[in-house]
């Protein structure tokens, strides 16, 4: 029973505080699901983000369904998803109502203007949290043999090039990184 309440409340917070959509939800999901409740490891979380990028639907809803299912089955998934969308329903409907009445959202726009840089900073933190364990096995910066991973760094550099220079579709870029690792590991295993 307690786990249902925890799932609902955790995703209620994610839904209520992720301003700016998509990636903005990521650090909040990590804070609840990895750091606070330990429902997923950082590796599972990164896999979840990867899967979310390749399947339709918002990251937060995908995370709610995935974590809910892993922790408490279908009822868990439903409760987590409900928690996730409830703040949206209330906020959007209230704002739409205010809008039709007053048509002035200047304070809201001021709030969004100053939230944007904070959201950028938090997305950056989440990005670093995903990259560090990929580059360094122990998760901390040290160039000891066996700790530093060269291939992920090369994939990262290649991916950045494809994304920035050739504006390639992010999903295609991610899949290419995955295929490169599959080819490398198959070569090591079978040759």
């Amino acid at each position, binding site marked *: 029973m307690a786990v249902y309440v925890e799932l609902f409340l955790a995703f209620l917070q994610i839904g209520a505080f992720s301003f700016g959509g998509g990636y903005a939800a990521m650090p909040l999901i990590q804070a609840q699901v990895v750091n606070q409740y330990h429902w997923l490891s950082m590796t599972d979380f990164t896999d979840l983000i990867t899967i979310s990028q390749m399947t339709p639907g918002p990251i937060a809803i995908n995370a709610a369904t995935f974590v809910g299912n892993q922790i408490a089955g279908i009822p868990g998934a439903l409760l987590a998803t409900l928690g996730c969308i409830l703040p949206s329903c209330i*906020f959007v409907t209230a704002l739409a109502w205010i809008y039709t009445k007053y048509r002035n959202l200047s304070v809201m726009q001021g709030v969004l203007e100053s939230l944007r840089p904070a959201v950028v900073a938090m997305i950056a933190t989440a990005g670093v949290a995903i990259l560090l364990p*990929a580059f360094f096995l122990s998760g901390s910066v040290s160039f000891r043999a066996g700790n530093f991973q060269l291939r992920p760094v090369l994939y990262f550099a290649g991916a950045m090039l494809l994304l920035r220079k050739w504006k390639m579709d992010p*999903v295609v870029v991610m899949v290419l990184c995955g295929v490169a690792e599959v080819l490398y590991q198959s070569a090591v295993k079978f040759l």
Partner: protein
Amino acid sequence: MEPKKENTKKDILKKLFFSTLYLSTFTFGGGYVIVSLLKNKFVDELHWIDETEMMDLVAIAQSSPGAIAVNGAIVVGYKLAGFSGVLCAILGAVLPPLIILTLVSYCYAAFRANFVIQAMLKGMRAGVGAVIISVVYDMGSSVVKSKDILLLVIMAASFLANYFFNVNVIYIILLTAAIGAVRTIYREHRREKTA
């Protein structure tokens, strides 16, 4: 433009549900994609909402917390059919990810044990990192280009607080939201004084 007379409420709800269901199933690549598709459907194709109003509705979807795709569906649903419209739109928007991720979740253990999938996910981790850093670069450079000192300070301070001091993201959001609200009220107050 109001919905045409021959559209009964039931027709509108049906259309709303199937449109959001369809868009949610086939849109990859984030909330903004689905918002522009909603515009295509309800403004350009069905003419149920006019262009300027749609822009305001999108602003509302962006101003609210939560996923843009869900918020966009809610606001369009509200505009077209009130509360029952909201319910139909949400159901349509949420059902596809709910079903797909449930299937993924049940296969995840078997999935993870597979050699090819394991290598694939491992390689993709660096790719996801690159995608995120690229997003940060785009969003961050628009903040830098604004040349607004307060926004730059907020960006730097939030990163320090979040990364090095593990400050809960919710406190960071609440504090910056308060700063933004106070600043806007102060600005408007001053404008009224000078006017």
